[in-house]
């Protein structure tokens, strides 16, 4: 089975719908705290999904149909690869939010290829839980002032610190749906 290349992107219509409808809509409807509450809900759901699965199954790669807002290359991940990806992107987003909140330019390029999982290790769920606990603490202590400084997502528009915190929730949600698709195939 052939898959797209890393960074291959989304279908044009999907990308434009997210950029022009979804992004403005979440900016209207979500505050920092609402995004954080919804993110915590997603993490609870992911934990409850993954803890029911045999750890050896969690490193089994599973080809699934492409889920919403996920590029073609990503549909061949294992459960733990998805969790690893969430940790990699989450750490990156946390650094971006911190930098933008200081009204500084984030110097590194953000690429889709750069956040792909590489390890597929058995203990990934522990790292996942620990990362999100640290993220909650980080956001809780962050002054909720929207930055003027921005950093562009490779597929969408320029995001400020608030946008990236909302993206953190949306991204986790999208990959939770991917995990549900993988788990359905594993059974």
């Amino acid at each position: 089975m052939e898959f797209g290349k890393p960074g291959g992107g989304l279908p044009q219509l999907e990308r434009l719908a997210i950029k022009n409808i979804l992004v403005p809509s979440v900016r209207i409807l979500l505050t920092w705290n609402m995004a954080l509450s919804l993110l915590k809900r997603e993490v609870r759901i992911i934990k409850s999904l993954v803890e029911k699965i045999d750890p050896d199954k969690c490193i089994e790669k599973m080809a699934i149909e492409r889920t919403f807002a996920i590029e073609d290359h990503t549909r061949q991940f294992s459960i733990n690869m998805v969790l690893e990806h969430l940790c990699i992107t989450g750490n990156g987003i946390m650094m971006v939010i911190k930098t933008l909140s200081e009204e500084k330019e984030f110097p590194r390029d953000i690429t889709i290829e750069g956040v792909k999982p590489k390890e597929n290790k058995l203990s990934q769920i522990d790292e996942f839980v620990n990362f999100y606990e640290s993220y909650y603490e980080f956001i809780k202590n962050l002054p909720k002032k929207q930055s003027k400084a921005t950093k562009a997502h490779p597929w969408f528009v320029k995001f400020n610190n608030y946008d990236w915190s909302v993206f953190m929730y949306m991204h986790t949600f999208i990959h939770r749906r991917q995990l549900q698709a993988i788990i359905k195939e594993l059974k």
Partner: protein
Amino acid sequence: MSSNAIGTVIRIFFIFIFLLFCWFVPVVFLYALASYIFNLEFSYGILGVLFLALIFIRMFYPKFVFK
């Protein structure tokens, strides 16, 4: 679109409905309170206008959402 993708879009729709409700509730509460305090007639039309005004304001504050 896969069934999972369709399910995701449907979930996004319902999340938006929930979020709109979260913004609607304080508008109802504040308008009802103001109506009571100032002895005004409670009008669903005005309630609707107030809610739409809030959504309109959110399009521009704290930042312009279409940029």
